Each structure stands twice: as C-alpha cells, then as structure tokens.
C-alpha cells in the first residue's frame, strides 16, 4: 500500500517510505500517546458505538458485547418511538441543552469581552483586579453547582434575599429550582464559572492589536462603537473562534453543575433543568438502558461533529472574505 501511494506521490513528494524513515524520531515521540489513545480512546469508542446496536440492559449486561444484536432498534427508540422509556424527558433535555449551550457560550464571550475591554486600560491595581476576576474560574464546577444550589433557595437563598429583601426588585420570592426558572438557575452559574477564561484570552488578544489602527480610526473620526466592530472584534477573530468552538463542545457536554445543584447529586433536575448528559447518565446508570443510552450518545456525537464542521467552514469563508 505504501509502495503504491509512494508511486502516486512521486512527482510531488518523496516516497512515503522514505518520508517515514526520515521522520522516524517523530514516530518514536508519538508512540506512547498513540498507544494510550488506541487502548483508552479508540478501543472503548468502538465498543461504545457497537453497544448502540445491542439490546443492553440490566439483564444482558453480563453478556456485554454478546448481548442480542437489534440493529437500529435503539435508534428507533430514541428518534421515532414515542412510547419508549428513553423518550421521557428527552425532548426537554434536547431543548434545554440547545438553549443552555447557546446562552452560556454567548454569555461567557460577552461578559468576558466587556471585562477584557475594561481591563485593557492603564489604571492603578490593574493586575490585582485581573487576578480577583479570575477567582470564579478556579472554583471547581461541582462546588459551583453546590454553592449556587444553596444560593438559589427560595426562602433563605442569597439571590432571593438580595432581589426581594434588599433591592425590592420583585414583590415575592420566586422559586428558582422548580419550574421554568431552572434553566436560568443553571445558565447563570455556568456563565459565572467560565467567563474569566474568555476574559483572559480576549485580554491577551487585545494586547496584540497595534495602537496605530485606533489612531488611524481616530483621524477618520470613528466613534468607540464603530472602532470596536471595525477593528477590535475582527482582530480578535482567532481568539473568539476558539472560544466559541470549545464553548459549544464543553457546554453541550456539561454535567457537574446540574448534577450537583439538584438534590445535591442525586435528584432529578426537572424538565427545565435536565441536560443531555444528565439525561443519558440517568438512563444508563439509574434505569440501566445502556443500549439506548449509547444510541443517544452516538446521535449526540454525530450532531456535534456536524456543528463543529459547520463552524470551521463558516470561519474559513469569513477568512476568505477578509
């Protein structure tokens, strides 16, 4: 095979075998990682995909990969069959995950951008303020879930005490951990936890923008708003491209904050608090529907790959236009 492709590439490059030989040391450096990834990424992921075609539940778990092969039945249960147990709450989980991912990604980027702009000035105590702003980011996410779970409490929670007793913004104490408010109860802590990282990266990006661009804009008489959208934002493109990419991925797979906030690690987050990960986790480890859980994970993976591809393509197009 390598000989064949070597012949094809002859006009452009050296033969593959020769290139492999030349770069032997690179393969030696990569070998440990390749082995680790083979055994702990590729091997399990192939089993995970295969599992989605099996009738795998508490009765057949001991047979594992020899469990009855049911073809696309699990996918049918997830996508089409309205009466299958996994469909309970699935629509809500998908809806919440979409809202949650979009709002958290936009929110962390927005707050991070505003604070980065505020910090990108000269003032006394700048590095101290920057360090203090990083604080939420070092709080572990499970602590974030736990802490905000108590802050959202109806009677004694800090949020309601502030909103109602101190500021009198609301006439009554709303219940944050039940009903439709739950989606805010998980979005706001997540933004709180993650925006400092966006801020740090955007701030670093801001410091690479040459001052002359702004001076030129000043001469042209551009206002601050126009300067931001015409200079700052486009110049930060490499930073926010990465931030949005990883924001979309990590928020879709968010787990810790939700699982620790409701019932403190054991409860059901309610139909406005449930996310894909908590939903599949519950199906797999509390209802023992491993097969359908795997099918849902595979579908989620496909959607994720599609989203990332679209994002890369959009970015490439935007770059070409520029």
């Amino acid at each position, binding site marked *: 095979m390598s000989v064949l492709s070597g012949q094809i590439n002859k006009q452009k490059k050296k033969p593959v075998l020769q290139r492999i030989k030349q770069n032997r040391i*690179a393969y030696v450096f990569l070998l440990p990682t390749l082995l680790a990834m083979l055994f702990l990424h590729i091997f399990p992921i192939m089993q995970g995909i295969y599992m989605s075609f099996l009738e795998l539940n508490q009765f057949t778990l001991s047979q594992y990969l020899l469990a009855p092969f049911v073809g696309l039945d699990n996918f049918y249960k997830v996508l089409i069959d309205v009466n299958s147990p996994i469909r309970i709450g699935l629509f809500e989980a998908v809806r919440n995950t979409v809202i949650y991912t979009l709002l958290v990604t936009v929110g962390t980027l927005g707050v991070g951008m505003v604070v980065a702009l505020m910090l990108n000035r000269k003032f006394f105590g700048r590095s101290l303020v920057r360090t203090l702003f990083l604080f939420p980011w070092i709080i572990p996410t499970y602590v974030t879930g736990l802490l905000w779970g108590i802050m959202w409490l109806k009677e004694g929670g800090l949020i309601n005490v502030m909103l109602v007793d101190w500021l009198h913004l609301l006439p009554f104490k709303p219940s944050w951990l039940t009903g439709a408010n739950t989606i805010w109860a998980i979005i706001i802590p997540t933004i709180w936890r993650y925006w400092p990282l966006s801020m740090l990266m955007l701030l670093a990006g801001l410091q690479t923008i040459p001052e002359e661009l702004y001076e030129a804009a000043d001469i042209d008489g551009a206002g601050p708003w126009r300067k931001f959208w015409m200079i700052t934002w486009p110049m930060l493109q490499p930073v926010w491209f990465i931030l949005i990419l990883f924001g979309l991925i990590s928020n879709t797979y968010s787990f810790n904050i939700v699982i620790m906030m409701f019932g403190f690690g054991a409860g059901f987050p309610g139909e406005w608090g449930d996310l894909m990960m908590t939903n599949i986790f519950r199906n797999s480890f509390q209802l023992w529907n491993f097969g359908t859980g795997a099918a849902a994970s595979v579908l989620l993976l496909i959607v994720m790959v599609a989203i990332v591809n679209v994002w890369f393509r959009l970015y490439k197009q935007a770059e070409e236009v520029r």
Partner: protein
Amino acid sequence: MPYYLRKRLTDLSINIVMLVFLFVTLMPIGWMLFSSVKNSTDIAIGRIGLSRNIEGHTEIHWENYVDLWKNVNFGLYLRNSVVICGTTVVIAMTLSTLAAYALSRFKFPGSDLFSNAILATQMIPALMYLIPLYIMFIKFTMLTGLPVKGTFWGLILIYSAFFTPFSIWILRGFFAAIPVELEEAAKIDGCNQFQVFWNVALPLAIPGIIATGIYLFLNAWDELMFAWVLTNADTMTIPVGIRLFVGNYQNRFDLMMAAATVATIPVCIIFFLLQRYIVQGLTAGAVKG
C-alpha cells in the same frame, strides 16, 4: 466640557462599574466562606448576618470544620485526589510534550490525521467511554485477577489518556513559537534529534508546560463522572466524597459550605503560587492559536 475632563469622567465611571461588577462576581465566594461558619438555620431562613447567642456575642461556628472532618474522611479524599491528579499531570504532560514536539517540528505521513484525531477526541461525549471502560476494567480483572476498578491506576490511566489530547493541542502552540534556528544551530554543534529536544526545545517550553500542567490539574481535580463510577470507598476523590456527603446531609447547609470551601482551598493555593504562569501561558497559547 473640556476633552481631558470628559476622559477623566469616563474613566472614573468605568472604574466604578468595574468595581461593582467585581463585587458581584466575588460575592458568591464570599458568601460560601461566610456561610461555612454560620449555623444551618440561619442559612435556611436567609439571615445574612451572624446570629447572636444569649450573652449577645456573635456566634462563629468554627466547629463546622471539625464536624466536617469527623463526619467525612476528608483527609483520605484529599490524599486520593492529590495522588490521582498529581500522577495524571506527570504522565499526561510527559506524553503530550513528546507528541506536541513531534507534531510541531515534523511533517510526516499521518501527522495531519493525528492532529485531526486530537481535535476529534474533544467532540466525543465522555459518557460514551464510561460504560465500555467500566466493563473493560471488570473483564480485565476477571481475566488476569488484577484489580483495576477502584484502584488509583485505573483512574490515572483514564485521566492521562483523556487530558493528553487537549494538552498536546495547547503545547503545540508553544513549541511552534520557539525559533527553529536555535534547534538548527544545536544540530550543527552535533546534537542528535533527542538532544535537540531535551537541551534546546524543552527548557524554552517550560513556562507553557507548567501552565498546561496546572490547567490539567484543575480539570482533573474537577472530574466527577468517571471518579463516581470507577472508584470505591478507599480511592474516592474529593468530588465523589462531597457528592456522597451532601446527599447524606441534605439540610446541613453549613457543613455543605464548609465542604465546598475545603474542596476549593487546595486549587486556590496552587493557583496563587503559579498564577503568573497560568496567565502568561494560557494567553500565549491562545493568541498563537
């Protein structure tokens, strides 16, 4: 209004907005620390100040921390977390430094495929690995008699493999930023490929390696799902221990907040000792892409 005065005023108002926002940002953390020395009823009814006892002295319940230490085997969890996260960082950083160097310096058959595979691993939901790994561990024990589930090594192996791709991705930027001329000069002086890596590239990449290592440590410290399923009572890490504890003491808000504080302190210490590196390192990696 003259220009400089207007600029002064704008600056001042931005500073005020910033400080107010800083206060709001830090308030949950302050509240966590403060609540950890209150009594549980005060938290539940929303009394923000400390309550006074009969003699009129304010009550500061330092004994919450003693209670916590008695009720939960926190020392054990702390040790487990430190051992698992520390070893993970060492292994994952070794693997990813080697791999990142190879990817940033050599263009070899398969290098594009490998780079894409690294990004692709980030897209896979962790839950997909969890069940196969869980069963693989059990099967391995059945075949060889060596325990894996519930041991340090099981979790360390998984964490190392999981955090390696992302740190390769960050580290590659650092190695790419090191001028190739330095390495070529070393080669002319008679260093072989490995010596070039060890004596030239590695020392220059140390700040990036430290930053990535800390980032990894924070992530490993934060991992709940795998630790939940794959540890037992002896190897439980802090997140799992706290989850169990919190499930058992549903209305002891004071103890929950004490537990949350204790779980946060170790990462805070690490962060403040090394924050210079994190700020430099992560931002450098981000800008270079």
